[in-house]
């Protein structure tokens, strides 16, 4: 792209690359030039950051007791074989 600006429509599609540090130096400069002057895009990026934080608050479900028991059996057998070897 020869242009030296991003539109809002373009910027929202680059947010993840921005947050992941994956923009090239040139893209980053163009991104930040727009970003520093656009309240809409500032709010949008902030919403993305909040979304990431919200996802981080979800807890992963834990192992079922049945699976746990089965695996502890696997572990004990492994240990028995190991100590006999």
């Amino acid at each position, binding site marked *: 792209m020869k242009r030296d600006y991003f539109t809002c429509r373009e910027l929202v599609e680059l947010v993840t690359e921005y947050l992941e540090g994956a923009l090239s130096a040139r893209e980053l400069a163009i991104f930040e030039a727009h970003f520093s002057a656009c309240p*809409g895009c500032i709010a949008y990026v902030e919403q993305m950051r909040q979304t990431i934080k919200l996802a981080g608050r979800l807890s992963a*479900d834990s192992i079922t007791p049945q699976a746990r028991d089965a695996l502890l059996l696997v572990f004990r057998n492994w240990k028995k074989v190991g100590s006999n070897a």
Partner: protein
Amino acid sequence: MTSTLPANTDEQRLIDSLRAGDQAAFETLIERYHNQLLRLAMFYVTNHAVAEDVVQETWLGVLQGLARFEGRSSLKTWIFRILTNRARTRGQREGRSVPFSDLAVAEAGAGETGVDADQFWPADHSSSANGWVSLPRNWNELPEDRLLSRETLARVQAAIAALPPTQREVITLRDVEGWSAQEVCNVLEITETNQRVLLHRARAKVRREVEHYLNAE
């Protein structure tokens, strides 16, 4: 999210304890990774019972391979690579061989935008071409107990559950479980670009759901 250094120390302790036959260390590992492994296995095999089987084999493989583990990758990555290898073999034997990476390429390839097109003025608009029609709301101005409410979290969870499978997997690993981009690429065997595209689409859809919810009153 966990940083790399404490995780390594933590992993080294776990490895040492496991080699010494410490059951508590094994319990820590299965608490941490079992369900993640199960979820991932389901991408490769046809049913839940087979996936359970593959994960159990994986844990046995971990225990048996522990003596040979050299720490060239993280323990976590090593465990998940054992899983994906076994799950793939099993899936192929079952005649189902759509590797995660192929699905990922397909799902990352489809044209899709993170924000509805009508949120922006059209390209021929005289003063605000492709700019916001109405500015997104600043969520920091919301009361914190609203933004972080149980209802909001339930919406986030539902939005993630409704995503296409590879997007769901990537956002779950990255944002819910706190994996690094590199770990996700290594385990799922996808390129950095695909990882980022999937993550971007997933986050954008979840954001949109939260926005609908927060704007609905």
